């Protein structure tokens, strides 16, 4: 890549005895004749010249453009479907639910939104919920958690960290899980039904595990008292977060997905980077290779509308997406690669031109053409 003149200066450091006839007889204060001390270490001395950089530009261009095209195509092949079910608009089925909000109602508001898919979703389909204008990355919010409590530490369970304020203690009982993040856990229930052409609603099976990082589920988050089945007893003496309708040990019936290791909780606890974000909600597993996971046709999204977002002008979305090796749909990476590759290539051409026209004085004439 670079014109290198490997310049080894004569390294006389290792035979200093020959420097003077009486050199070793008298120990003088004469500095040691080592390559390091005399600043004569052998060194590789690369120089950036047009001749060395030009091939690099071309190579970068030639590598980046195909990668970019590949990324772009991959991203385009990913199927994604998105529904905003906030219910801002009066015509929206969820309008009523969004209007009549109060935390402590026992009866939950439900609404269902019909939609249709124009194309079948072939492979596994991932169901996300998306929130907008929700500042999960607010400093006060991000730090309002107690990882030690979530890791099953019994002391922290009973005496949560101060960081959890003001969601630490309720009615003299420690909150489990404490903190603002846990308190505001997303609690809408989304259900998907396939509407057969003949009108029957077929529920689509939604897998609620495998949505969180493996390490989070198995190491970072643990129920107190290990894997003892009696979560109720373990959580005795704690209280549920204020906004939750039920305590943490009733999140799921499956003991592997209950309490602190509930994957919905774990996913929620990984705070998003930006105020508009999506989080994995459910996975629709491909049944067999013959039928698509979600064939084209009509569907209904049934929502148990619990989560209020209108107070802070937020939005709620449901996203269905397939996934490729590069993750979800995002054309940015492909475009960026193509543009950077093109810029490099273009610069290479310009430099080549300049180099040929004006670079006669330069004696590095080893440019490939």
């Amino acid at each position, binding site marked *: 890549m670079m014109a290198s003149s490997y*310049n080894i200066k004569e390294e006389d450091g290792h035979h200093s005895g020959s420097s003077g006839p009486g050199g070793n007889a008298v120990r003088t*204060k*004469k*500095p040691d004749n080592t390559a390091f001390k*005399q*600043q004569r*270490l052998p*060194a590789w*001395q*690369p*120089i*950036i*010249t047009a001749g060395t*950089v030009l091939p690099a530009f071309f190579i970068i261009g030639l590598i*980046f453009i195909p*990668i970019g095209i590949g*990324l772009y195509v991959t991203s385009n092949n990913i199927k994604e479907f998105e529904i905003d079910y906030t219910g801002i608009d009066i015509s929206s089925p969820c309008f009523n639910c969004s209007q009549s909000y109060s935390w402590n109602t026992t009866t939950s508001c439900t609404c269902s939104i019909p939609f249709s898919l124009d194309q079948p979703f072939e492979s596994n389909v991932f169901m996300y919920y998306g929130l907008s204008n*929700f*500042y*999960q*990355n607010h*400093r*006060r*919010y991000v730090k309002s958690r107690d*990882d030690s409590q979530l*890791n099953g530490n019994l002391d922290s369970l009973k005496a949560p960290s101060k960081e959890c304020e*003001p*969601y630490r203690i309720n009615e003299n009982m420690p909150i489990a899980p404490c903190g*603002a993040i846990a*308190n*505001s856990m997303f609690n809408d229930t989304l259900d998907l039904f396939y509407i057969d052409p003949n009108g029957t609603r077929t529920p689509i099976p939604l897998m609620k595990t495998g949505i969180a*990082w493996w*390490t989070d589920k198995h*190491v*970072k988050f643990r129920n107190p008292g290990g894997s003892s089945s009696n979560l109720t007893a373990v959580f005795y003496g704690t209280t549920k977060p204020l*906004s939750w309708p039920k305590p943490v040990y009733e999140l799921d019936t499956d003991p592997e997905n209950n309490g602190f290791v509930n994957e919905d909780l774990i996913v929620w606890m*990984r*705070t*998003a*980077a*930006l105020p508009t974000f*999506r*989080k*994995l909600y459910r996975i629709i597993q491909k049944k067999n290779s013959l039928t698509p996971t979600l064939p084209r046709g009509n569907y209904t999204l049934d929502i148990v509308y619990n989560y*209020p977002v209108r*107070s802070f*002008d937020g939005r709620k979305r449901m996203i269905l*997406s397939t996934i490729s*090796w*590069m*993750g*979800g749909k*995002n054309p*940015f990476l492909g475009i*960026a690669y193509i543009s*950077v590759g093109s810029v*490099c290539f273009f*610069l290479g051409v310009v*430099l080549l031109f300049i180099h040929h026209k004006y670079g006669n004085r330069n*004696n590095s004439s080893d440019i490939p053409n």
Partner: protein
Amino acid sequence: MLRRRLNRLFGGDEKRVDSRTIYVGNRPCPATETFIPPKFCDNRIVSSKYTIWNFLPKNLFEQFRRIANFYFLIIFLVQVIVDTPTSPVTSGLPLFFVITVTAIKQGYEDWLRHKADSEVNKYPVRVLEDGQPARKDSEKIKVGDIVEVVEDETFPCDLILLQSSRDDDTCFVTTASLDGESNHKTHYTVPDMEKDLQSLSATIECEQPQPDLYKFVGRMHIYKPEHDPAVRSLGPENLLLKGATLKNTKKIYGVAVYTGMETKMALNYQGKSQKRSAVEKSINAFLLVYLCILISKAVVCTTLKYVWQSQDGQDEPWYNQKTEKEKGTILYVKMFTDFLSFMVLFNFIIPVSMYVTVEMQKFLGSFFITWDRDFFDPEIEEGALVNTSDLNEELGQVEYVFTDKTGTLTQNNMEFIECCIDGFQYTAFSSELDSFCVTDGPVSTFQEKAGREKEELFLRALCLCHTVQVKEAGPDELGGDQVDGPASEPLRPAEQRGFIASSPDEVALVKGAMRYGFTFLGLESKTMKIKNWQNDVEEYELLHVLNFDPVRRRMSVIVRSKSGDTLLFCKGADSSIFPRVRPEEVERIRMHVQRSATEGYRTLCVAYKRLSVDEYAAADAGLREARLALQDREEKLMAVYNQVETAMSLIGATAVEDRLQEEAAQTMEALQGAGMKVWVLTGDKMETAKSTCYACRLFRRSTELLELTVRTLESGGRRREEMLHDLLFDFHRKAVQDAPPARAGVNRSWSSANPEYGFIVDGAALALVMNPSPDTNCSRYRSLFLQICQNCTAVLCCRMAPLQKAQIVKMVKNSKGSPITLSIGDGANDVSMILEAHVGIGVKGKEGRQAVRNSDYAIPKLKHLRKLLLAHGHLYYIRIAHLVQYFFYKNLCFILPQFLYQFFCGCSQQPLYDAAYLTMYNICFTSMPILAYSLLEQQIAIEVLLDNATLYRDIAKNAMLRWGPFLYWTVLAVFQGLIFFFGVKYLFSNPALQDNGQVFGNWSYGTIVFTVLVFTVTLKLALDTRHWTWINHFVIWGSLAFYVVFSFFWGGIIWPFLKQQRLYFVFFNMLSSVSAWLVIILLIVLSLLPDILLGVLRKPRGPHTQQLSKESLLYVDRYGNGARRFPLAVTCSWRHSG
């Protein structure tokens, strides 16, 4: 110190007496009824800064006066007091580290000074107490004590000479370590002194201490029981200065008048002030810019935060309630603490680690100077010494070099080189008797040598026309000499015969004559004895000495030979001799004189005249009369001298070489080639200094000399002030106004069209310029003077007192553009200028260690200056400049994403990076490569730097740390910061980046940005590295590897001491995502693109092998050995071409 200065300022202070009264031997005197022992300071010399007690507070105070340290202290305190996003440890630990390291370093340095001080202060001296010498420590000497000093000892304080072991009530001293004059000076005891010092009862009244070495006014009252008090006036000839050395005198007694810090030597020292390098000033300027950026960032964020919070539901949404405490705080207090929090969040933009790294770089880097074998001098078996490592890079920025002459430029070792008798040249290579060898002579076909008679006459003249004394050997030997007679005595080798003279030239001449076989045996009671070729002793009666003075520039003796002839021998500068001899003789000699002078030798012409009885009688009468004159004695003497010294006949000329230091001329040439202006500041005589300047090729034949000296000032017969005015304006017109404008940066050798000017000024004239009488417009003179100086290629200042040297340095230092000055000297007289200049270099010469101790760097020889500046200085400057720029750069692109992130997290001070990354970024991940770079980088090989002095100009005027480059680095940092942040942000528009559909959170975001950052910043340095040693490879790739390993480790374990496991498996998950990999690679490439592009477009500066050989070839053509060997020829050809 301060009090004295104040007193000097308000000279008319009534309480302060202008004189001090000293009781000799501290005994009460009959005249004063009440003896009050006056209070004077003791004889302790203090150069250290701290004591054990005040070290901690004083050192801390001084350290926190540094803007950066103070800033970090504030940040630390804010973190302790206010609830901030990062913990106080992140800034407290590095700060503590920096402060401790600096304190240890300064403490150690001060301890060394304490040791040196106590060595001086505890030096044993003998003080006369009750008639018996008692041993005391030097620091215990009180004013009024009578001190005994023996030969070759230095005087422990300023003494009035009371008694000398010599018969003639004189003693010889050498003040080499004070003013650089190594010849012996005669000092006199107080006239009519009693022999018994014990019974002496006297007071001395003298002026308060003042720094002028050559001025002293005092009175001594001697009380005798039965007589009236006798009054003797005291002058500088009675005063023995601390620091001078007693020579050729067995023992003296003197009474201390000034002690300790009040001695003239100490007064000529200047207060040690901490020197700051220009780089540090640049750092401070950049620091202010970054501080502004920081504050504006914090202000913007705070404002935005409150704007954002004012929207509905944003301040306190239901999911993110405030705590009770937060609700309780007043709005303005909250705003202020928010502002402080932002400051803390962004404070990494000004990294404390930069100061640690800079200090380490300087400290470690200075070892390369001490390690350099090229600085090792086998004679003294020592290498270079670094006293301050703070100024390494300043060595690459020098614009003015002020050099001492004696001992620095020259070896102060006169040697007789050749002579010319009657037009025939003789060199002094052979030391055998009667073997003049003719090397060169015009039309020497007929007669190869001058007549023998002429030769003898010439040598006799050399032997007689001087004021040299023979150093007395031990009494036995002396007696032997007298008894045996010269005929039987084997000739003593020349080396053993010591001569003492006020001018080393005279010694050289006498020694030269000795080598040709005419030996001067000594002067005894007006009879000069010389031994001639036949080993006969000739005796001459010395009748008159017509002393040398700088105006006449010649001296004569009138002697009477045994045969009764009265002869006048005269020697002097050619210009003063030629008009006084017969013109037909002149031409034959003139050529030789000119050639010798061109070679840089000091030439003298020798003439003689046979005086008839009448002539002598007239001259004798005239001289006697003039000597007795009370008024205008000088003028009258001069008139007689001029009258006598006429119509002489020229015998020949001599050439004496003041041996230059090795490679002095080449060094000076290299320095001038590097664009430095060399000024010679010396206490020596003008003639001597001038010829040295010629020899060093600071002045050339073609150089037009502008002289502003006492001689030129007085020549017009007008008042000095008027003359000064005229001369200054005249010179100014010549050198400044008429000079063509486009002369900057052109090597003077090539600009042959322009006349070159050399400026000569002496101490007295300088004093007139600096402190003119009140009626003249003084500031005008100063600026004129400065302008003239700056437009001359070389400036010579002679007859300078040490403080005047410092004054000159100060004047240049404070002139427009505040150029970087360097002073180099070897004696105590150079200390003040060494301290005053930006960089002080001490030469480890013969004249003691004062200069070395007070210098910033000490080198064994002048020639080492070249490598020190051209190679070490250049490299250090490049290294540190790059270091500074790089540090600001890497921290700006470190913090910029964090700043941008505030816009997307509700300006809530949420850090983008994990605390570990925030702390480790500057300490571990990116510090080692730049440290290695700043120690090892050699963009241009040392050999090339040494050969091409002009390369030094490339970095002149702080070229790499001016606003241009700074702007470039800043823009680059902003560009990269934007790319890091927004690149990842667009990626995170869909945070599902893994192939299992799982999403990334905010810590993944930060980690991706941080990974790109660390890699980009390190690779950017790799791109800049032009000298890859294994250490660079190790450190650059090592620190990247360390980052990866650390991230794995940090994210791989649930750390029990952490409140939050933010990074748990974040790095691992990031690496498992192909998109993250791709975006990291893309962003790194994109960020480095502009730099690569610029590297291509920029002219390559590196040591290209071909380019290198070509340049060095060119160099040989221009400066090659030919030019060195034949300077005259070269200068001539340039003159003709111009």
